[in-house]
């Protein structure tokens, strides 16, 4: 159909002879994302459930779970270990995995959507909205009455942010991405201000309760937390992953995405809405844990490439792995004291963010110089 057949044939020889090949690169990334990462995560889970005030053998969880799936008959662990595993450590690790995955996936989606490697769920003002909800629950005393008060109001706060943003930014018919970022920043400031104002009028123990909440922690997470969050988080992440190819097109710019036949406006709103709900629920489970949504997408874009069809699942696994390890670190570092997971992620995340900024500046200097 196109001329220059001869030139084409010659170049196909070129690609076979030593020039890096697309399929080979893709296969390598798939191996890393879909074989290595699940294995690492499984190993991390086994170690994480074993470490604590009472050490439990890493194989205990396997011995406990496999017979329940009808595989083999291994010696059952001691009664005490079973209780520790099933009621304390395993739900905590599962919560870490769920939250880690959710924040990482939302981070990937935000960065792709905004074509901005610095974007994260915080950009939308979701964290600030969630915090406002939490502080309302705590200062009004509802939190003392029900376990569900903080989560529900946190979700409500995050949703409020998302609704405000979509109302603000779609008033002109099209949702300009830059406009959304600015709206998110403005909302963040507003909600943080309101949060501070509420704290001003609240009692000291409420303030410390809130401050404790904002550190983000996984201690005392039970099956109840997982029961209300997993039915939102898992389908939410799956839904976001279905738009992997559209996210790829978003990185070309909205104009090109549209010229390739994508429903840019609709998909943008759907993605924003799902990301808002998922982030809100994740924050409700364990407080605002920073940097997961920023750091993990970057790390895995570096490891498996920017194609969202690989990057999204890889970041989900990687985010889970990262938070399980951070929580493990917090428990193992200064026993019997537990360092809250939000503190660990912040301490690990900030230097990474700084190195990222320096690297980007250097790259720009090379480009312009």
């Amino acid at each position: 159909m196109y001329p220059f057949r001869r030139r084409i044939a010659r170049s196909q020889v070129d690609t076979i002879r030593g020039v890096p090949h697309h399929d080979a690169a893709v296969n390598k990334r798939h191996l890393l994302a879909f074989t290595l990462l699940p294995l690492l995560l499984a190993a991390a889970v086994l170690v994480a459930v074993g470490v604590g005030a009472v050490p439990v053998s890493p194989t205990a969880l396997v011995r406990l779970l496999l017979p329940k799936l009808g595989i083999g008959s291994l010696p059952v662990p001691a009664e005490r270990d079973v209780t520790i595993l099933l009621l304390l450590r395993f739900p905590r690790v599962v919560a870490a995995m769920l939250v880690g995955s959710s924040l990482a996936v939302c981070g990937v989606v935000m960065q792709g959507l905004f074509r901005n490697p610095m974007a994260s769920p915080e950009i939308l003002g979701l964290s600030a909205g969630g915090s406002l909800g939490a502080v309302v629950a705590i200062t009004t005393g509802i939190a003392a009455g029900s376990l569900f008060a903080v989560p529900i109001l946190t979700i409500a706060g995050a949703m409020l942010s998302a609704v405000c943003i979509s109302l603000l930014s779609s008033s002109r018919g099209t949702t300009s991405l830059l406009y959304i970022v600015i709206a998110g920043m403005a909302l963040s400031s507003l909600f943080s201000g309101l949060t501070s104002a509420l704290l001003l009028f609240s009692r000291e123990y409420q303030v410390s309760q809130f401050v404790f909440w904002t550190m983000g922690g996984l201690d005392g997470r039970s099956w109840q937390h997982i029961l209300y969050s997993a039915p939102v988080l898992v389908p939410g992440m799956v839904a976001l992953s279905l738009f992997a190819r559209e996210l790829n097109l978003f990185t070309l710019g909205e104009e090109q995405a549209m010229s390739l036949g994508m429903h840019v406006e609709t998909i943008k709103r759907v993605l924003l809405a799902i990301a808002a709900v998922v982030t809100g629920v994740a924050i409700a489970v364990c407080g605002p844990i920073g940097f997961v949504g920023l750091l993990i997408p970057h790390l895995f874009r570096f490891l498996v490439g920017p194609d969202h069809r690989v990057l999204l699942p890889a970041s989900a696994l990687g985010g889970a792995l990262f938070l399980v390890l951070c929580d493990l670190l917090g428990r193992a570092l200064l026993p019997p004291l537990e360092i809250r997971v939000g503190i660990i992620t912040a301490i690990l995340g900030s230097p990474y963010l700084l190195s990222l900024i320096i690297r980007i500046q250097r790259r720009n200097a090379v480009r312009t110089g």
Partner: protein
Amino acid sequence: MSPVFLQAKSLTWSVGNARIVERLDLSIERGELVGVIGPNGAGKTTLLRLLAGLLVPTEGEVLLEGRHINGMESRSRARRISFMTQDLSQVFPFTVMEILLMGRYPHLGRFQKEGAEDLARARRMLSYVGLSAIEERGFSALSSGERQLVLFAKALVQDTDALLLDEPSSNLDIHHQDRIFSMAQELAREGRAVVTSVHNLSVAAQYCSRLVLLEKGRIAADGRPEQVLQSEILDGVYGIRTMVSPSLATGSLTVTVVPRDRGAAGIRVHLIGGAGSAVNLTRELYRMGCVLTGGIAHEYDSDEKLWKSLGVRCAAVGAFSRITEEQIRESTPFVEQADMTILCSFPVGSGNLGNLRLASLARRLVVLRPGPEEMPRTFLSQEGKELFEQACAGAQLLDHDAILSDLEQARDKAAAP
């Protein structure tokens, strides 16, 4: 009769009160390579976006083979029309191949993976634009010219009947510019319709089969390059003085900008030259904005060719023929009306003796150095030398710079109230 392939009907697009494209009618058929030209802000990019269905017109409509483009399902539209943007930015480390495969999006099912055929097509297009060995290189690590070529290849990977290219060669060297436009010509010859915005008018003239000149969102001219690229049309639209001349080598039109009139209009100068002796002064005085006349020249002499291309009124006789008394009479008004007649330093033979007679009739004659006493001037006959001396009798003798400063003073005096 089959409907027009791509048609804009009374197309209008406005932002607030500003009308970027206004009541524009345009019909494009398969096989055409249409260049959209016009000054910055004339609405070129907006017109392309409207034609690609990326914007919804404020008024009017765009039809693809009679069907409303904005009513089409977006993926089926994307299988018919591709659009190449000027936006070359990419913050994430996608490889060239990954970028190219994105061009297959409208052809693939919701969860369908790109197959071997898609990959082969992407490779073919990459080598077609001459970049076969870079498929696994990072797109953002490429030079802007290479990125432009990759995006062009991506538009080809999309495999559409209509291609809309927004400044496809703005970052390319002349080699790749030639390549991209030659490929556009080939695509048109295959029966596709290619519409491209171009800033470089000479490039537009060389490759496009048709040019559409936009001015403030309206069509100022539409037709073959030689119909659109005319100084009378361009000067008004771009607000400058242009010179359109066919290239000596290829015959395609070249548009050159003539430096701005510096306000010496009204000062009339007649140049008597020959054998290229008036070339430098002609250029200087033209730039200064003097009203020039020239002659009597011999045809195909380099002075005469320059005068003609600049549109300087001049008298000329056939090459190597003798200037007759009648021709001197006809040219006399030039030298009588000129504020200054300049006798350039040309060799005098038998053919151009008449020019020395003409010089002696001038209202004010300036002889370009060297003068009669300084004798590198060549005279083939004694008669020529005598005539030259006669002509110089009442004349000023000035060198090149002195002539220019004399005219500049005259200009400044004329400009002062």
